[in-house]
C-alpha cells in the first residue's frame, strides 16, 4: 500500500496541519508503513458482520431538557490565547 505526496498534502489539508515541504517525505514513509499494517485487515473475512462502533451495544441515555450548567465564560476564556470583551479573536475572515 503506497500513498503519494499529493495524498499526504490532501490529508494534511483536511486535518488542518501544515506539513513543510521538507517533512513531506518523512510523513509519506510513516503513513505508508502504517497503511501496510492496516492492509493486514484484508486477511480477515468480515462478510455479513455488522460494524461495531462501541463496546456498549446500547443507545445513549437521554436527560431532561433543562438548563443545568452555569455560565462560566470568563473562567473558560482565561486560558484562551486572545480574547476581547468576551469574544475569541481570530485573524480577519471577511475583508
Amino acid at each position, binding site marked *: 500500500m503506497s*500513498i503519494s505526496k499529493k*495524498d*499526504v498534502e490532501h*490529508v*494534511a489539508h*483536511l*486535518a*488542518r*496541519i*501544515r*506539513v*513543510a515541504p521538507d517533512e513531506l517525505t518523512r*510523513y509519506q514513509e*510513516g*503513513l505508508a*508503513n*502504517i*497503511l*501496510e*499494517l*492496516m*492492509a*493486514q*485487515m*484484508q*486477511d*480477515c473475512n*468480515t462478510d455479513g*458482520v*455488522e*460494524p*461495531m*462502533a*462501541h*463496546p*456498549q451495544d446500547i443507545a*445513549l*441515555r437521554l*436527560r431532561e431538557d433543562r438548563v443545568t450548567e452555569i455560565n*462560566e465564560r470568563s*473562567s*473558560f476564556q*482565561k*486560558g*484562551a*490565547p*486572545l480574547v476581547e470583551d468576551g469574544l*475569541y479573536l*481570530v*485573524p*480577519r*475572515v471577511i475583508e
Partner: protein
Amino acid sequence: MPHRHSLTTLRDMLRQREISSSELTRHFLDRIARYDDLNAFITVQEETAMASAQRADKHLSNGEYGPLTGVPIAHKDIFCTRDILTTCGSKMLRNFIAPYDATVVERLADAGSVLTGKTNMDEFAMGSSNETSYFGPVRNPWNRERVPGGSSGGSAAAVAARLVPGATGTDTGGSIRQPAAFCGLTGLKPSYGRVSRYGMIAFASSLDQGGPLARSAMDAALLLKCMAGFDRRDSTSMAHDTADIDGALKINLRGLRIGLPTEFFDDSVNPTVLTRVREALAVFEELGASLVDIALPNSRAGIPCYYVIAPAEASSNLSRFDGVRFGHRSEQATNLQELYEYSRAEGFGEEVKRRILIGTYALSAGYYDAYYLKAQRIRRLIAQDFSKAFEQCDIIAGPTAPTTAFGLGEKTQDPVAMYLNDIFTNTVNLAGLPGLSIPAGPDDSGLPVGMQLIGQFMDEGRLLGAAHRFQQVTDWHQRAPEGF
C-alpha cells in the same frame, strides 16, 4: 522508611496516627525531588499538597476520615485539575490551566487523598514508551536506560520508584497495563463505562478508560473503588456497583477456570516472558484454578483494527485544538486557515500528527468503507471471540506485552514496531473488557515481566480477587528496583 509500605498500609497507619499526612506527604515530595532524574513528573504541587495534608491531619485528629484520607497520590497529566497545569504531555497544552476537575480527580480528592503532582506521559497518550512527551522521556527505575512503557509512563515510574504509593493512568490500547508490566506494578484497565471519562482529555472515546497503577491488587482495588461509579457528565458511564470488589478480594480460586489463548503463547513472545507467565500459572493451579486452552482467532487482526479505529477517533477528538479557544496559537498566521494549520503543526509532536493524518485518511471519502468500516467489523469479531472464549473459562491469562522494558530510543524511528507492543492489550479495549497486569517475576536482566488477566465485562472484582490470592503466596509485587 514509610515509602516501603503499601498504600493500604499507609492509609491504616494514618488512621492509627502512627504517622501524620504532613510527614508522609513531605517524605514523598522529598523523594519526588530527589529522583527527578527519572522525569516522572511534569508538575509538582508542593504547596497545595502540604496544605491538603494539613487539612487531612486535622480531620484525622478528629477521627473523621474517608477511604484515602491523607494518602499522597499523583495523577497522570491527562486528567484536568482545576487551577493546576494540565498539559497532556503536549506543547499544545504546555500553558493550559484546567478550569475544572475531572470526575476521577474530584472523587479521589473527596476520598481524602493528597495530590502531589501530575505525571509525565506520551503526548495525548499516543505512545508505548513515554518517549513522545513534549517534556522528555521518563526513565524506568529498574534500569534508567530503559523505557517505563507508555503512555502512563510517568505514573508507572513514580509508583515503582516509591515516589507515591499509587497513581492514576489511562488505557486506550494498553497504556496502564504495559507500563505496569514494564515497571513491576499492578495496573488495572477497568471495563468501558466503569470509570468516568469526564475531564479526561479524549484520545479515542470508544476505547479510553481511566484506572489505577499501584503495587498490589489490594491497593488497586481500593483506588478503583474511589474512582469508579456512575457519572451523569459522561454519556457512556454505567451505573455499576463496586461493592462486589471487597468481597471479591476474598474469593477462593478453587474451580476458577483460566483460559489460555494459544495466540498469546506463540513464538512472537520473548521466551523468558513466557516462562515467567507459565510459572505464575502453575501457582494459580496450586491455588485450585484449572487451566483451559482457548482460541482468540482474530487477535492478530487486533493491531491493524486498533490502529484504524484509535487514530480515526483521535483525528476527530483532536480537532478541538485549533489555536482559538485554548492551547498553542501560532504567531506566524496571517489568516484563519493558517492559524489552524500552523497552530496545529507547531503544537503537536510528530507521532500525534502522524496519527491524526492516518485517522483522517481512514475516514476520508473513498477510504471509509475499506478502512474504518472494515475495522469496525473486525472489532465485532474480536468482541465475539472473547464472548465465545468466556463460555469455557472465567478469566483469560497471558503475557501483558511480548517483551520486558526495551531501551530508550530503540523503537522511536519505527512507529509500526512500537505499535506491536500493544498486541495482547488492545483487543481488550476494542471489546470494552477489564484487564489487569500483575508482576510475574524478573527476566534474565532483572526487569519485571507482566502477566495479564482479562475478565468479563464488569467483572474486575474477580480479576482483582485472583491477583490478590496470587500476591498472598508470591512476593514479585513487593520487589523494589535497586536504590529505591
